[in-house]
């Protein structure tokens, strides 16, 4: 089991995570369009996508941890 975390202070609303994994991430309604994690404990079938989204964040706002 892994857990997704977002640091709202780092997030700049670029939406890269939403592009990579639209089932796992969304953006709020502004004004800064910060990340919303839709599924903080993604199923193993979504792990690869989750990891790619974490790495895709240009502002290093996303992390993934065990358990």
């Amino acid at each position: 089991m892994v857990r997704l975390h977002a640091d709202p202070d780092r997030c700049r609303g670029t939406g890269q995570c939403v592009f990579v994994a639209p089932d796992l991430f969304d953006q709020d309604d502004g004004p800064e369009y910060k990340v919303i994690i839709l599924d903080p404990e993604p199923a193993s079938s979504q792990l690869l996508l989750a990891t790619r989204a974490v790495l895709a964040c240009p502002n290093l706002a996303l992390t993934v941890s065990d358990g």
Partner: protein
Amino acid sequence: MEQLEVPKMPWKRTNGFHPPEGFAQLREGPPVRVRLPNGQVAWLVTKHADVRAVLSDPRVSAKDSQPQFPMLIDLPPGEGMFSFLRMDDPDHGRLRRLLTAEFTMRRVNAMRPGVEQAVDDLLDAMVEAGPAADLVKDFALPLPSQVICQLLGVPYEDHEFFQDRSAAVLDLAAPPEEVGKAMGELGGYLAALVAEKVRTPSDDLLGRVAAAIPEERLTERELVDMALLLLVAGHETTANMIALGTLTLLQEPGRWAELHADPSLIGSASEELLRYLTIVQFGLARTLLEPLTVGGVTMGAGEGLIASIASANRDGAHFPDPDSFGLGREQGQHLAFGFGMHQCLGAALARLEMNIAFDRLTARFPELRLTIPLEDVPFRYDQFVYGIGSLPVTW
């Protein structure tokens, strides 16, 4: 000075589809100092991991007023050109935040019907006049130009004027005074346009951001610079990705047919083209606010560096068999849009335009082919944004 021993930055390509030779060898070792064509010396960062690290490090500055900032585009000195692209926080954040709403995935997805219509109209016109066309002039350039004009609220009737000036600004072979003149003319044009939007609010990007001027979130001057950045960045880049991307897809027999047969491959084809072609060909210029150790080398405060995203995207440590183009490649983290706080604001829009363009082109022109030999294709070796100047095709 030790500068006499500094090697030149690899600059000249020997193959239109690959970065200059020399980068592969540079990636074997730590970052080195190189000399740019204008004589400046800067650190050259070439590995994927290192490029990612420097572009996301707050000790690395994008401010072009720093004395050792590597000038890849030789511009006469001036304030604010390229807007927040060449600023650090807090000014960068203050200005860029005014645009976040305009480029969210949701907003960009809502532009899909308009982009599809623009693509279909341009391709209809090509068919009408065909069966021969210059894919650059007739499709790849007008598409993003129309899209960015509509988004910003810039009259598309003026496209010849700003396409011509944008090209001059990004032509590295042009003398600085010509670049300055083109910048000045574009700036004058946009200043008049922005002044109008301040007087009479309009429901377009420039109109909406102009509403923030009375709230003192930006000045009218800053909006003019922002408009210039968005206009130039918004059409040159996407235009060249569509044209050079099409040429790349036509190189290997069967590749175009594969996309025609299975349009679900288009999205990953666009990503692989972004990686493989990396049209911001000379990299991203930065300076160091503090000493920084990159790849085992400590660079000094104030020194300039170039993060070569084209080299990073060919790093075998991140992309297996990096110099081959693969439609089925496992997606890595390509850096074609940059990384860090300055990563391309319009990435989602660029992807949307590319995906629709390649989808419709392969659907409607399954027999698309060049009418000139590859060696006659005018590659844009001296342009800040790499690509091709024309692409004569038939179908």
